[in-house]
């Protein structure tokens, strides 16, 4: 940093009182003017009205203790409100009153003390301003030297530098030690499952009926009128004992019916819809929010979390927002009884992208 010292040549050193000598250090590129102003020292002390007028002082005193008494009143009121405003009869209004009146009491109790104490400090406490002298945080040269000396002696006595084999083997041991701790955390997730495997499959399978969320009532193709949006879960999901939410988080589907002429199925997907009825995964391909804001005339689907928009008439391709991939489509058909069924599982993993997806 020798380059910085140029500033000293044209400019006088800072005002060098004893205290500032202690704070010596490179000034870097700071410019210290040789004819700068000097600190004029403290302004004359201005007394407060409460210092001069005994009446005002009395009044301030009265205000302070009144505030403290109000605080006691607030505490008493909070206890009273606890008893006076019970929560009864499934009544939300009672909760509201209970919350509000206990709150008012506590507020009064707190603000009474708070404003009283501050007012006391501001108008009645008499201490003038204190002046603390600062000392360099690093301490004196002697202290610094002393600390260095302690380390040097410790090093010498222990041989920490000298016995490098011991030292290095200790460092290696210490580095190895946390690894078992990390390994133990493998137990956070089940040992016998693999995430990629789980993410690639849902409950949908050939012949699974589409049913209403949450009742589980199967849906006939004829129920789904043009402009409708049905929120769908696979048959049997509602009865699952284990993993119901996990399965639902992958299998939730939105069922819509458009005029068949409005659909432009991608090649190979011509048979995935049934007479204008299409089923798409509800789980956003961005970060997984349920996408279910369906506009029946524009055929846009909107995700309320990050505003990705998907075009249902165009294979749910992304037309706006941060998502990249279209929502996966569930191929559907109709069984003998007229109920909608899945032709198969989704042909790709649903939901947010993940590293191993391809």
């Amino acid at each position, binding site marked *: 940093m020798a380059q*910085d010292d140029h500033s000293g040549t044209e400019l006088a050193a800072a005002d060098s009182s004893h205290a500032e000598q202690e704070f010596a250090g490179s000034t*870097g590129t700071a410019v210290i003017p040789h004819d*700068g102003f000097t600190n004029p020292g403290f302004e004359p002390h201005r007394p407060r009205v409460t210092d001069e007028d005994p009446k005002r002082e009395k009044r301030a005193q009265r205000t302070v203790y009144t505030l403290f008494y109000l605080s006691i009143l607030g505490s008493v009121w909070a206890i009273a409100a606890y008893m006076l405003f019970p929560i009864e009869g499934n009544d939300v209004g009672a909760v509201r009153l209970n919350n509000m009146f206990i709150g008012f009491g506590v507020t009064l109790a707190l603000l009474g003390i708070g404003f009283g104490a501050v007012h006391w400090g501001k108008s009645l406490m008499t201490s003038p301003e204190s002046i603390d*002298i600062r000392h360099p945080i690093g301490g004196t040269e002697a202290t610094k030297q002393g600390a260095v000396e302690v380390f040097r002696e410790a090093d010498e006595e222990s041989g920490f530098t000298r016995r490098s084999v011991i030292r290095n083997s200790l460092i290696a041991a210490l580095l190895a030690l946390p690894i078992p701790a990390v390994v133990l955390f493998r137990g956070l997730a089940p040992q016998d499952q693999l995430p990629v495997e789980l993410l690639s499959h849902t409950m949908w399978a050939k012949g699974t009926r589409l049913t209403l969320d949450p009742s589980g009532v199967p849906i006939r193709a004829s129920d789904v009128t043009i402009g409708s949006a049905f929120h769908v879960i696979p048959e049997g999901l509602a009865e699952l004992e284990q993993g119901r939410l996990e399965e639902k988080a992958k299998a939730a589907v939105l069922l819509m019916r458009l005029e068949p002429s409005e659909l432009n199925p991608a090649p190979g997907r011509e048979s995935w819809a049934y007479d204008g009825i299409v089923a798409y995964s509800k789980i956003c391909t961005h*970060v997984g929010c349920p996408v279910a804001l369906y506009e029946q005339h524009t055929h846009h689907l909107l995700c309320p*979390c990050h505003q990705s928009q998907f075009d249902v008439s165009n294979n749910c391709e992304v037309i706006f927002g941060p998502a990249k991939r279209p929502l996966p489509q569930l191929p559907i058909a109709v069984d003998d009884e007229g109920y909608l069924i899945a032709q198969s599982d989704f042909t790709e993993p649903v939901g947010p992208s993940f590293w191993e997806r391809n």
Partner: protein
Amino acid sequence: MTTAPTRPSAPAKRTFTAAASDYLNDRTGLAVAIKGLGRKAFPDHWSFLLGEVALFSFVLVLLSGTFLTFFFQASQAEVHYDGSYVPLKGVEMSVAMASTLDISFDIRGGLFIRQMHHWAALLFVAAIGLHMLRVFFTGAFRKPREINWVFGFTLFVLAMAEGFTGYSLPDDLLSGNGLRIIDGMVKGMPVIGTWTSFLLFGGEFPGTAIVGRLYTLHILLLPALVVALVAIHVGYVFIHKHTQFAGPGRQPTNSVGPPILPIYAAKAGGFMFIIFGVISLIAALFTINPIWNYGPYDPSPVSAGTQPDWYIGFADGALRLIPPGWEFVWLDRTWSFNILVPLIGIGLFLVLVVSYPFIEAWVKGDKREHHIADRPRNAPTRTAIGAAGVTFYAGLWAAASSDILATHFSLTMEGVIHALQAVVIIGPFIAYFLAKRVCIALEKKDREIVLHGYESGRIVKLPGGEFIEVHQPLDEFDRWRLVSYESYAPLMLRPNARGKITFGQQLRAGFSRWFFEDRIAPVTRGELEASHSTHHEVTQSEQH
């Protein structure tokens, strides 16, 4: 305790106090601390209390949170709700959700404490943010406080983590979708994403483990870290002594203000109760996080206007602003840049924030301790950088409410997002430029005032028929406030001992030019005298 008792009845009482304090002191050595700290000065400025707002909100968060732990059950076992809230009766939900509803509807005052806890948490993070801005814009992070800036920054991050884990505990629809988004973001990370999510949720999302795990973090690990860091952070405020603004009698070598005992203690103690009181009033009157509306988490529904609490908003906003299509399959793996870019962008932003004190110190090369807080205008480049950062953050933050902005200002959501994309990219440059110009203009105005005095509002007519306004000269105290600031010149490059200019030096010189080339130096005595000689004529002509 040195005054001799004058009345016979007094000694007994005095002796008891003295004996009690002696007893304590002999076993704790407290007297040393009280003697050392009791009369310490605490400089007075409203902005110096912002850190206390954070501290006291945190105290209230701890107190109210402890109450809540007695009733909350962090379990995702399924139950049928049978509490007092009619529209959820019989609905299947987790124990966590049901117990939170019980706190709200079946325990008297429970809702009040819950609302205090949540409001205090929002205030806690907000106060940290404002406190950080104060420290940044007044340069209170300079030597010797750089490390305390890092501690404070860490506290900010921990506070956000505390907030997010708490927000997720009730297992309601809003927080569940929040976790869903976290899950999606984690999965989007290269290499480790899928497994991290799998371990975090204990299997597939949502699983039945996450609430319990977050609870451990929320009430054990994170608060322990916060308390420890708060102790260190505040401890260093005592060791460093607080900064003060330039003023008459204020030296870099002293610290001036009311003493800790009694005035500061009364004010700060009272202030704590006032903050508690304000939060309590808000909790009494304003609903926060009405989980009874959201209902239990279910992966299928979602509410319009789903957002995180405000302090996570900037991250959510960053996700919303990514244009379509930023995701690729390459080498048979998925690269989700629509998630990586926000993560990396936010990460870089935070790294810049935490490392700024070290960057500025390196540019300046100033190794002295700094205890006089800068006025923001007197460090124009830093202030401008701060303004750019605030604009960037605010743009991301606003983006988290893009849908609400659209409905409430009758705009299209696409338009709002495009506008905010522009704000986040171009806005910081505009803010930088404006802030810098404003600072320099204010510095120039300060120079004018020092040199020519205040405009007094008194108009006089000169003999020549010209009207002028009489300027009132400053007294020496006011003048000192305007001239006592640090000023830096751009670094001059000099070859080192081996006759070379290193790349590091060139870089530093470049930064130094950027920071200081259009600096405005404080007025010197010579300049003031020079201006007085011209003024003299005016004053004389006034006499005629």
